[in-house]
């Protein structure tokens, strides 16, 4: 019989081993699946892993991956703060959408300016809208003890409908535009490309990186980060330390909502330029960021690596779809396999396995 024995002390070496195990598992399982499903598996695998160097412009391919990683990383870091406080915010997608709407609304409120100073205002407007959207599940949880898992998820659909409403209703652009969208933000209020000709590598990326670093430092080194560490595994010790659970719920919801909202604003100004319906505006960053948070073991460094990994894989999947006519849903599959492998290997971080042979009878292990 196999027995799991709790480790007395978990060290950095155990951590590294378990991450390596997860990486190997992901690679092996993904390869098997690719071989079962792809038309030209060897080619597909090769190109999936090395797509920036497969004939396209290297910098363009890399910047696609980095662009995606920026959204996943910042939103994932925000979500990790919630999860460490045992608050299950899975509505980042909605907070992201409201961030886009809030930024565009801010632009309209300011009187449709074309000056550069509109950019920080729009980012703050987006962050504030995300924060407001996240405050709804926080309020329901602290006042009515509602399950935030359900409320935050349901609000994603409300936010999606709001996108539909504004882009077909009050903010709908004049007829010369395509239907169901708002007007474009002026060039001067968009986040322009840093390298000419590479639109996905825009000013929003360094802003996202700055935001990520600031929040990561807060999580790692401040009393707020300590609060998360204590609350994560021992709510009882958190109360003993004087932390109010209510304040924790509010703080993590507002912070993560503002982060997702700010990224919604950056997406609006850097990647798309207008608000439109759900199917064209939302790309699932808010949901993939949940995977990123757990893949990174809720630690900022891990989340950064996980975001880069998933960004890279997603870029590779769209490459093999475009060039080899392979199914790009392999990206979603790898995402899930990576998550499962990480969760499974985390078990062995906490426990060591002991093989006791077949001799003992199962009843005695009860």
């Amino acid at each position, binding site marked *: 019989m196999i027995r799991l024995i709790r480790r*007395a*002390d*978990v060290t950095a070496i155990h951590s590294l081993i378990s991450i390596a195990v997860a990486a190997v598992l992901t690679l092996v399982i993904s390869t098997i699946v690719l071989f079962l499903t792809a038309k030209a598996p060897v080619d597909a695998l090769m190109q999936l892993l090395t797509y920036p160097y497969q004939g396209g412009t290297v910098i363009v391919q890399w910047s696609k991956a980095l662009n995606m990683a920026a959204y996943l990383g910042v939103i994932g870091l925000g979500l990790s703060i919630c999860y460490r406080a045992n608050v299950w915010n899975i509505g980042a997608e909605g907070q992201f959408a409201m961030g886009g709407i809030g930024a565009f609304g801010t632009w309209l409120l300011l009187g449709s300016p074309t000056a550069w100073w509109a950019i920080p205002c729009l980012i703050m407007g987006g962050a504030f809208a995300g924060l407001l959207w996240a405050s709804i599940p926080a309020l329901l949880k602290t006042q009515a003890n509602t399950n935030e898992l359900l409320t935050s998820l349901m609000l994603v659909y409300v936010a999606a409908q709001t996108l539909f409403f504004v882009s077909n209703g009050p903010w709908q652009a004049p007829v010369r535009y395509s239907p169901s969208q708002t007007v474009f933000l002026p060039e001067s209020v968009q986040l322009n490309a840093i390298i000419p000709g590479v639109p996905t590598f825009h000013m929003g990326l360094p802003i996202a990186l700055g935001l990520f670093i600031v929040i990561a430092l807060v999580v790692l*080194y*401040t*009393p707020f980060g*300590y609060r998360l*560490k*204590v609350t994560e*595994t*021992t709510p*009882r*010790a958190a*109360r*003993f*330390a*004087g932390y*109010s659970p209510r304040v924790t719920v509010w703080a993590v919801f507002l912070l993560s909502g503002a982060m997702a909202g700010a990224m919604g604003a950056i997406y609006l100004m850097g990647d798309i330029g207008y608000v439109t319906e759900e199917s064209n505006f939302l790309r699932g960053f808010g949901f993939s960021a949940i995977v990123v948070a757990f893949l990174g073991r809720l630690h900022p460094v891990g989340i950064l690596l996980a975001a880069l990994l998933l960004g890279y894989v997603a870029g590779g999947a769209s490459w093999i779809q475009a060039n080899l006519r392979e199914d790009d849903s392999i990206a979603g599959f790898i995402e899930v396999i990576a998550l499962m492998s990480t969760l499974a290997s985390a078990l062995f971080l906490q426990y060591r396995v002991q093989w006791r042979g077949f001799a003992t*009878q199962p*009843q*005695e292990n*009860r």
Partner: protein
Amino acid sequence: MTANDAVSLELNSGQILALLGENGAGKSTLMKILAGLTQPDQGTIEIQGVDVVIRSPNQSRQLGIGMVQQHFALFDGLSVLDNIALGLPKIARSELRERAMQLATTYGFQLDLDDTVFSLSAGEKQRIEIVRTLLSEPKILILDEPTSVLTPQEADQLFDAIRRLADRGHGIIFISHKLDEVARLCDSAVILRRGRVVGTCDPRGGAQSEMAAMMLGSQLPDRTQRGTRTLGAPQLVIHDAQSTQGDAAIKSLTLHAGEILGIAGVAGNGQDALFALLSGESSMTQERALKWLDQPVGGLDPNARRSQLGWAFVPEERLGHGAVPHLSLTENALLTNLADPTFASNRLIHWSHVTQTAESIATQFDVRHAGLHRQARSLSGGNLQKFVVGRELIKNPTLLIINQPTWGVDMGAARHIRDAINTLAEAGGSVIVISQDLDELFELCDTLCVINHGTLSPPRLIDDWTLVELGLAMGGQTTETIS
């Protein structure tokens, strides 16, 4: 440390025997010996006049000993019948169903064999365990704290079933520390204390106070070696304090400077709720009910009590309450100092000061550790307790509230902790000690009160208590007459 020291007991068929004792009294070890999980160093076990040696759980079962554990070992996703079948040698389903049904009707268990386990209540799950145990036809049935998860109604049904089992000739060992249940159900009781049998009695007819006294100590400990302290001015005055959840109440209590007040009581009588009320972890109905130096302080949270009043708290549970298991010792040194600006401001933690403090705690309180960066859970219980107590005492608190200061701690560490508490009181600090160890309370305390069902009796000078009165108060019989 001897968990069981020359324990003898005798069980007749048809008898319901209570095995009473505090946590750590040696009940579990004794039962592990009967279950074949632990081997005794000496002594004999006889079943129906035959000397036996129990080497394994299987053998224990074959000898006719059946044990129902406190925690269920059931598969939630399987049906009742599947769960019963799992613990048994292979027999035909139809036959098993018939036998299980027959047992259930004989003993009055309502059990639908086709229900899925996850939909059942704790009482029903326990019935599955009992039926499963009974199917191996035990002569002796051991029930380990069976009522701890049951509602009072479910407990009543269980007691009926136990009586029927006894009527049919089973010998029953009922492990508990709930005195009223023992008095209702059992026809004899063996009381264990620190691994020894300290008494046997007939629990029927109001022997509760006698049993409580035996559980806690056969005589009042000697106090001659302890000098009398002169107490200072009143510091803490409590009047009609009640927790909002209603699980703890204090009628009236005054604590002086330099006073050590003990709170005695049988386990599970609301000690934790009382601790939470005093530490501010649970809220109280009236802010004025709790006064410190004439100021109402009942509305303050734990950190405000620490930083504004200079109080300090040590909870019973070391890991998970007093310390965070997966954080390092250094990080744990910060846990109760968050409101102190020398440890942390709003933006920054002053790690050098935290580390220094952790080092001083370790040296002054003799904490044996393999590095302050190691996780708290890597320490032994005694060392961690010294760390947690040291973290509070090093602050020289004005009031220390400490729950079970030396529970599960070796003699040396216990000595160290008690000495430190005494030193604090001699320097003028006030202390409230909640403990289930009468020896400890009599060694430390100036005054003593008793907690029963969440309510605290008025305190009295420790020399004014007699053993009989203490027993009565702990058995919860006539709190009014002794107040």
